[in-house]
């Protein structure tokens, strides 16, 4: 049964990817890429990667297509030219693929418990994290504690990316009094959309907080919670306009928060250093090492959540601001 599910989900992924490659209507390609994200999230659930599925469902099926739609609204919907160098490209791709497939024959069979990937560090994480870190979700243990350094790097990259986006798209934030043009407001006057989204915004935020603070015990954590929280605000912005959202959320505060999350994460590491242990070694945070791990993980997950939520909102606001600027010019 599991195998059947695996094979059918993967085959659907391939079919969707081919659809994306063939379509010259970019709107359709982005819609398909949203489906692609949802399918891969389902696939990750069958692979026991529930935390990953969570992230992929909110990012791959939600935010990523949304940003692409915003871009398409600015740059146009159709590809102008047919595929260039289609035949040589196809040949190159088939050749590379064939060589790679030949190479996969050396990879241990799928699901093999004795594969090298399962026999080195994984047993340590699986057997010891319960007593060393003291929380049930191993993914959170590894993410926040064993590989805390790596996660710090990732959060910094997310922050750096938003700095880049804001530098490129400028301060295209709409000045007070600038209204959304009528073409963009048509959908937001839709009564069903307005009522349903109004009902949904609060539960989505509550769910984000649950995902944030329950990440130690179940699937979830700062990355997922940040994206989900931002999604609530983005839904509100889409239907009620940037102006209304700006009344609730100050962009300057968001910029400070994006940096604050990274700082919070780093300062936990510094506190550990001041207590005489290594950077990000949470054992130093309390008399009992397991308690120290708990404190450390809660604080750094909070830092991740704040940064990711602020970054996602800032990126969306930057794109939406561009869209409004453009429709005013034309």
């Amino acid at each position, binding site marked *: 049964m599991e195998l059947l599910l*695996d094979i059918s989900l*993967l*085959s659907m992924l*391939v079919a969707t*990817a081919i659809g*994306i*490659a063939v379509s010259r209507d970019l709107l359709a*390609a982005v819609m398909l*890429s949203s489906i*692609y*994200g949802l399918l*891969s999230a389902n696939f990750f659930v069958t692979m*026991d*990667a*529930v*935390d*990953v599925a969570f992230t*992929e469902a909110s*990012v*791959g099926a939600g*935010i990523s297509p949304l940003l692409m739609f*915003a871009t398409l609204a*600015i*740059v*146009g919907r159709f590809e*102008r*030219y047919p595929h260039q*160098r289609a035949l040589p490209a*196809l040949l190159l*791709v*088939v050749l*590379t693929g064939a060589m*790679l*497939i030949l190479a*996969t024959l050396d*990879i241990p*069979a*799928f*699901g*093999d*418990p004795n*594969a090298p*990937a*399962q026999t080195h560090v994984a047993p340590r*994480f*699986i057997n010891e994290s319960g007593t060393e870190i003291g929380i049930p979700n*191993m*993914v959170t243990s*590894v*993410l926040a504690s064993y590989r805390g350094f790596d*996660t710090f790097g*990732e959060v910094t990259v997310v922050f750096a*990316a*938003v700095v880049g*986006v804001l530098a*490129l*798209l400028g301060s295209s934030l709409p000045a007070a009094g600038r209204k959304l043009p009528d073409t963009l407001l048509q959908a937001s006057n839709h009564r069903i959309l307005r009522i349903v989204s109004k009902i949904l915004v609060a539960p989505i935020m509550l769910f984000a907080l649950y995902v944030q603070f329950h990440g130690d015990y179940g699937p979830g954590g700062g*990355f997922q919670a940040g994206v989900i929280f931002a999604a609530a605000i983005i839904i509100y912005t889409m239907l009620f306009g940037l102006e209304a959202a700006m009344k609730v959320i100050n962009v300057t505060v968001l910029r400070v928060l994006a940096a604050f999350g990274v700082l919070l994460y780093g300062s936990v590491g510094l506190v550990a250093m001041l207590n005489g242990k290594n950077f990000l070694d949470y054992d130093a945070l309390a008399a009992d090492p397991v308690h120290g791990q708990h404190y450390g993980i809660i604080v750094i997950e909070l830092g991740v959540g704040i940064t990711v939520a602020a970054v996602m909102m800032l*990126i969306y606001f930057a794109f939406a601001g*561009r869209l409004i600027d453009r429709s005013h010019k034309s």
Partner: protein
Amino acid sequence: MSVLFSHYNYWVVIVLMMIGFYIVIAQGNLVKKLIGLNIFQTSVFILYISAGKVSGGTAPILADGITLYSNPLPHVLILTAIVVGIATTALGLSLIIRIRDTYGSVEEQDVRAAEGNRKQESC
């Protein structure tokens, strides 16, 4: 037959990767190229997650009465990679918007042509 079942995931990864690769090299529209890169990226995610699966295992969250878990390490790597991926995609998309501002088009050919004209003028 057994090789088909035991390596099916890896082959699908390669097929997806190659579809993404094809889009990047053969299609001139920059938004489409980014979608292709996303497909390529997701195929790597699938490779990692497939490598972490242990048959008969369960999700890596400690629970009573369960002894066999899938490998949590690839999950961690991919989870963070997804969020970094969306941040870099956003950066790419904003670059595309700026290219559109400067050249009036997001097609590789048009941008090349405009760039060629500009060089001739400066000569």
